């Protein structure tokens, strides 16, 4: 299967400042199309219309946290069509195990360097698809 190009990222983050910085970083440095949502509900309302290649999710959010948001989004879009990455400061070993079990591609630790964020995401994307193809996917 030919490796798809990463262009559309659905990003969920409750903190407006961070949301803005990430959006700027991804749009200006990575040339990605970003749908930045402030909540799970916002994301759910956007997902069909936006049709993302990748989900980028904060973990610690009020009401519905990152993992719960991912579960909710997964009812609309599969991991194959839109794999996920968490971007969070909550990176205890036990948290990491939990994220892995949820099938996310990777975790980006906050605080992140906005200058290399796009490159990092691209790198994860590449790795995912190469291993996906290696495994006969």
């Amino acid at each position, binding site marked *: 299967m030919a490796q798809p190009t990463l262009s559309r990222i659905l990003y969920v983050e409750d903190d407006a400042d961070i949301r803005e910085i990430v959006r700027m970083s991804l749009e200006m440095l990575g040339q990605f199309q970003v749908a930045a949502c402030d909540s799970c509900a916002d994301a759910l309302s956007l997902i069909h219309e936006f049709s993302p290649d990748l989900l980028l999710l904060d973990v610690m959010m009020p009401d519905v946290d990152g993992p719960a948001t991912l579960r909710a989004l997964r009812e609309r879009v599969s991991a194959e069509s839109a794999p996920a990455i968490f971007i969070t400061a909550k990176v205890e070993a036990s948290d990491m195990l939990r994220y892995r079990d949820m099938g996310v591609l990777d975790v980006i630790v*906050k605080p992140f360097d*906005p200058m290399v964020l796009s490159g990092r995401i691209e790198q994860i994307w590449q790795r995912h698809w190469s291993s996906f193809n290696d495994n006969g996917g």
Partner: protein
Amino acid sequence: MNIRRRHKLEYLAAWLLILAFSAWTINLLFNVQNDWAQSNEITRFDQDVHGLLDPWRNLNRPGNDVLENYEVDTQNKALERYIAEYSEARARLEAHRATHVPMADFFAAMDEAAATANDLASRVLRLATEREALRLSEAAPDSIRLVETEAATTMARMDQAFQGGLDLIVKMDESLDRRLLDLDASRRASIGSLYLIVLVALTSSALSLVLLRRTATQGEALRSGAERINAIVNNVVDGIITVDESGNVKSINRTAEHMFGYNAAQIVDRSFTELVAPDRRAQYNEERFRLESADTGREESEYLGRRLDGSEFSMELATTRIKVDGRPLLIYIVRDISERKHAEERLQLAASVFENTTEGILITDPNGVIQSSNPAFTAMTGFTADEVVGENPRILQSGTQSADFYDAMWRSIIETGHWQGEIQNRRKNGEIYPQWLNINAIKNARGQIINYVGVTFDISELKASERIKDEFIATVSHELRTPLTSIHGSLGLLGGGVTGELSDDSARLVRIAQGNCQRLVRLIDDILSIAKIESEKMQFHLQSVAIHDLIGRAIEANQDFGKQYGVHLQARPGAREARVLADMDRLMQVLTNLLSNAVKHSPRGGVVLIGVQRRAGYWRISVVDNGPGIPESFRENIFSKFAQADGSDRRKGGGTGLGLSICKAIMDRLGGRIGFTSERDVRTSFYFELPVMQRQHTASEMVSRSPEPQEPSTWME
């Protein structure tokens, strides 16, 4: 005599009684001795009579013709009569030996008569011989007649002598008769009395024997009985005190003396109330009067006793009222029950603890059958004592623990008599809850297990509060990081020229802000990290870690950081087989900290070497730089929190001062140690040591090789 001997032998005391009768016996002995004396007199009598008669007998012997032609018949007849009389007297004398007839005079007379007889007999014999000689010489008949006449006269005189002797005998016999008559009566009486004496003596002896035996036995019994009673009274653990009707102590045994600290002389004839605590005396008197009004009886009551030194103790008085010689006597059996009281109090305390403690307590027999449980247990589990007694604690099991868990628990209880830990059990309502359980085997004096006691408390709230704490830490972490992320991100974009080129001054200011932002992030990370390590909240995932790989990854992860300082990180060739049992992430954290310090303190252009060496049973991983080294004054506190050599150090390195204390905390948790050697301006080596682990191929080893060079915070598994 036998009896005497027996008495003497058997009963010394009987001897005295027997002595009283021995006078009679001695008297008897004297009689017998008199008898013997009498017998000697008879012998002498015989001798004297023969002395009187023998000269004639020899003269008149048949064949002796000296007295031929002499008229001897008269003499012979007289002799015959004499012998008859003599025999009779002798027989009487013989028959009544014990007559005490005085015979000395008789014997004297007899001796004289016998001497005369002998003399005359000799003269007769000489005259007869002379006559014969004259007749043979045919001397004148006249001279022969003269001799014959003289001989006849002599023989007549001899006859007189015989007659005198006979008279003596008759006289003696008569006196003997009279004496006998006297004696007979007295003798009869004495024989009677002798029998009586013997009878009395025998009876008395027998009686005394019996009496003595009885008295001896009774005496012995009495003596041993009294001694025994004394011994018992003095040695019983209870005090025994007798008190008369006026309330005065009459006797006190040794135990009571010790108990009250008195000796008998100090308390006998004094009021018993002295032995009762002052504020209990009224109660004592009241009860004593009440008891006295009863005939006899027994009552037990508890008092406070008072010792001579004024100290008081709990005592139990068992009062028995008896009558001795018609007078009432109270016997107090006193028992010092302070020990018992203490024991009771302890027991009450234990019972009260059992009932009121907030810990649930479950007691089982050695077979694990529940014997009792306390209210806290009921409050925790919902099971009442009635519902669990007789059951096995298995009824509490939640099913969330494996069989291995219970195996390990029982192994520990059997081997060490103890187990404690967290366990999940099920309440009566089905709810599963965590509890802390402490099980102890209770052994008896012989070391046999008689009970198991489980003390437990519900830790669901504790768990909840721990969760709250964890959440708090996570929240703080999140709340601090979120604005930092924004600041850091904004500064990053600004500094990166995304929003347009900055002036040099602006760019420098943005870099300062960025650096401090990063430092703040590290500070938060370190503080949270050390808080978690120290509260043992940090989970360690132990696995086999290949040191070679660890070093490789640490160098890769920190090489860029080194470049910032113009320092190169380099692995020293070393033991590729080195392995330790540790948490890979934590070791990376330690090594990263050490590398970061080494880089920051190395001169520009310097090299930091990372190596591994085998020490006795340990692998030593060391990070060596050739920086200025650790100042003497700082060495002691180097692993303390917020320890930095000087203020400029902080600005220069941008460290938090927590790195080494985190490293030490991690090493403490892993059972390793951390240390350093420092030679000023030449060589400083920080190292940590962990026990050698035998090489084995494990899945974790394979996993740990998977490289994640750029981002150490991503997947490690």
